[in-house]
């Protein structure tokens, strides 16, 4: 048995044993957390070995009826297995103490966690349509249980669960139909057979397969307009689950698109990839715009997931576009950028969600308007979130900076290469990526600056405390990965390039594009920054002691926390700028003194930024379904006589039908 097989076997075995233990003896949270972390670690080993050239393949015909289970791990799948494993390792360690609450100690929840991780590890390893669909559904169900784990907290959790259940199953149905159409053109449902069949598929059939699977996979990745579940379910789930969903599960949507579109269907028409690119660009801008307006910490992170998956799809779309115009090197560059962004996003989103969970654990609040002043009491969490925010805002020296740099390089070099379609798509994509980058900076300055710095804005924030040890370890693991990815992306570049199926970037410390002149060295950049910092600090800062003084309050004061800028007020200028796009609902109540209407007693300001796409797209559909249900209700008044009558008429009808047709 090679390393890949050992790793996979270990991951699945440890995960299932942990779940079994959870069923039988209902152990402490630490055991389940540790089991999950070990599952993740084994998956990292397997995935890394697979991207390094190892391979493994197993067919278990007896496990499931009809198609059996067949698993294979190639470099592409290996990358996603490793990413999932990494997220699970950090989240598992974190969960060892985070899960120590009555809601999360429930048996079902404890069982679902390792099962969820195992399912996510198996999805990229599936080597047949049947296996993929089974693992996909298992993953959806396990995560659904986890999303509603804290349902006692309020009705919004159940609502989030409902949204998630419906959307994920509609997505599943879409993937199911798409793959079934595909399988109908092949001798059996194994990926080898499908790959063979994909070459001979008619363009219209291939188009149908691609569109249907894309819809399903995109809904899992939270791509606009199928994103409605994401900003609901991700914040309401327990934080380690949010991390798993937002950093690992959504990636599998991208995996699906790449696997089916690039691998099984072998490229395809230009319009496919223009569609992917457009969906990605819209998602990136819309996601980050919603995040910029959001004042709920975890919701903001969820919306930023939509943004990042959008950026990844821009890369995937560009790769497909270049491949269909025959430029394989550029396609590899774009796909490398996209996959590197997947890895980087997984690292920093894990870190951010774990840090947000730590805040939630300490203060019981996710509302940025009620947070602040956490830095002195939660130094580790603050540092962790700060690092994650730097990574997420695509600034150097951060994780996302490298991948976005590669993405922009691919787009720039694609303009002369790709013909008229590229000439229109590339500038728009660059504009979308650029707008996203700018808004991401504003968003994460808001999240970090308002949420962690300054003075506490509520009693809960003032009474915060640092989290237990294992939670800090979980965050530290994620933070360490973030730092390595930011400073030395060359470390995982071979793995990513193996998955992308082409070497477009070379170098270790300095990344050099093989096809064009262009180089970037995040390590040198960081060293230069540090050197600059030291020089300036040495030359100018001096060693004179500081005098502590009261804040400048214009001589009045004292200034209370109510005078601070909140997340809502921070986002107000942006909200005005994008007024036409986000269409916020404002509500200003001015109450006057009884004696005189010229004396204002209180001003109440409420702002809600509804999801406009959701309002326009989902509301009519939901209204239609409700109307349909209401119409149907007339048929079912609850009278047994009426139901017996229905039965009688139905039998008569069938008999008449038989009599006529025979």
């Amino acid at each position: 048995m090679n390393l890949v097989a050992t790793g996979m076997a270990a991951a699945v075995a440890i995960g299932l044993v942990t779940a079994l233990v959870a069923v039988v003896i209902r152990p402490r949270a630490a055991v389940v957390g540790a089991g999950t972390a070990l599952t993740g670690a084994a998956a990292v080993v397997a995935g890394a070995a697979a991207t390094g050239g190892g391979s493994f393949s197993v067919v278990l015909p007896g496990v499931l009826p009809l198609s059996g289970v067949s698993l294979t791990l190639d470099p592409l799948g290996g990358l996603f297995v490793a990413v999932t494993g990494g997220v699970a390792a950090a989240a598992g360690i974190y969960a060892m103490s985070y899960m120590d609450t009555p809601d999360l100690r429930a048996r079902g929840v404890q069982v679902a966690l390792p099962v969820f991780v195992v399912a996510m590890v198996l999805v990229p390893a599936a080597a047949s349509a049947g296996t993929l669909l089974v693992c996909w559904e298992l993953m959806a169900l396990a995560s659904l249980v986890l999303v509603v784990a804290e349902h006692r907290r309020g009705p919004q959790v159940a609502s989030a669960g409902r949204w998630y259940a419906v959307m994920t199953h509609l997505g599943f149905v879409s993937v199911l139909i798409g793959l079934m159409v595909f399988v109908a053109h092949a001798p059996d449902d194994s990926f080898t057979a499908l790959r063979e069949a994909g070459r001979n598929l008619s363009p219209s059939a291939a188009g149908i397969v691609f569109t249907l699977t894309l819809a399903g996979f995109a809904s899992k990745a939270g791509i606009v307009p199928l994103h409605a579940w994401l900003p609901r379910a991700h914040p309401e789930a327990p934080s380690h689950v949010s991390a798993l969903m937002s950093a690992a599960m959504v990636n599998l949507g991208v995996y699906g698109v790449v696997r089916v579109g690039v691998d099984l269907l072998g490229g395809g028409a230009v319009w496919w990839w223009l569609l992917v690119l457009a969906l990605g660009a819209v998602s990136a801008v819309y996601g980050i715009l919603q995040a910029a307006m959001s004042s709920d910490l975890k919701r903001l992170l969820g919306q930023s997931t939509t943004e990042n998956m959008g950026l990844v799809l821009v890369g995937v779309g560009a790769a497909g576009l270049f491949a269909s115009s025959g430029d394989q090197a550029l396609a590899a560059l774009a796909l490398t950028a996209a996959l590197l962004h997947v890895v980087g996003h997984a690292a920093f989103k894990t870190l951010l969600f774990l840090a947000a969970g730590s805040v939630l654990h300490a203060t019981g609040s996710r509302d940025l308007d009620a947070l602040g002043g956490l830095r002195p009491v939660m130094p580790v969490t603050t540092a962790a979130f700060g690092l994650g925010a730097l990574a997420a805002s695509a600034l150097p020296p951060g994780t996302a900076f490298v991948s976005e740099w590669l993405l922009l390089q691919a787009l720039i070099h694609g303009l002369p290469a790709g013909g008229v379609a590229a000439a229109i798509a590339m500038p728009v994509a660059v504009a979308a990526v650029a707008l996203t980058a700018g808004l991401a900076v504003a968003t994460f300055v808001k999240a970090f600056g308002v949420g962690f710095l300054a003075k506490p804005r509520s009693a809960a924030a003032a009474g915060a405390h640092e989290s237990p040890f294992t939670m800090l370890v979980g965050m530290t693991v994620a933070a360490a990965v973030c730092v390595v990815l930011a400073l030395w992306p060359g470390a995982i570049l071979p793995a990513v390039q193996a998955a992308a199926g082409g070497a477009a970037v070379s170098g270790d410390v300095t990344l050099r594009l093989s096809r064009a002149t262009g180089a970037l060295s995040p390590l040198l950049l960081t060293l230069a920054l540090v050197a600059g910092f030291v020089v300036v600090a040495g030359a100018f800062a001096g060693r004179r002691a500081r005098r502590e003084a009261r804040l400048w309050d214009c001589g009045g004061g004292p200034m209370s926390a109510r005078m601070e800028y909140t997340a809502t007020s921070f986002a107000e200028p942006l909200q005005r700028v994008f007024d036409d796009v986000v269409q916020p609902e404002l509500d200003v109540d001015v109450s006057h003194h009884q004696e005189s209407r010229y004396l204002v007693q209180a001003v109440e300001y409420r702002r809600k930024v509804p999801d406009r796409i959701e309002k326009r797209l989902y509301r009519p559909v939901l209204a239609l379904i409700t109307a349909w249900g209401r119409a149907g209700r007339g048929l079912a008044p609850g009278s047994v006589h009426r139901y017996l009558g229905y039965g009688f008429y139905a039998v008569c009808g069938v008999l008449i039908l038989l009599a006529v047709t025979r």
Partner: protein
Amino acid sequence: MLSLWRKIRRTGRVAEPAPPSPERLERAAVLGGSVQIRHVDAGSCNGCEVEIASAFGPVHDGERYGARLVASPRHADALLVTGVVTRNMAEPLRRTFDAVPSPKLVVAVGDCARDCGVFAGAYGVAGAVRDVVPVDLEIPGCPPRPEAIVEGLRKLTGR
């Protein structure tokens, strides 16, 4: 835009030639020809304010000697205090003084700031500026002429 340009051409330089430089205040030597000023109205009738504005206008151009008005006492080296110190402004004045990083100077502008002027003994008056914060320079007048204010500032900048 063109008319503005013509106006600029026509007007030319309106700043008056600089009178001979007064002797520099010893405490201000460390500032080395750059004095940032935060103006505090401690209870003035706004007569002095008009003259201060004029002292920084094009004709007298206080800025050419290295003095500049700033928006925060943290950025300032000197406080330019006008008016008697009213009870409501005594504490804010002290806090403003405290907010300025040392070395710092206080300039009392106008008769009210020096010795309460016509408001001496009024019920809302806490005292002259020197009763509240240490004063380094006093500029007399009710209101002082802009030339006097500029001369006072030049004693700080030494230019």
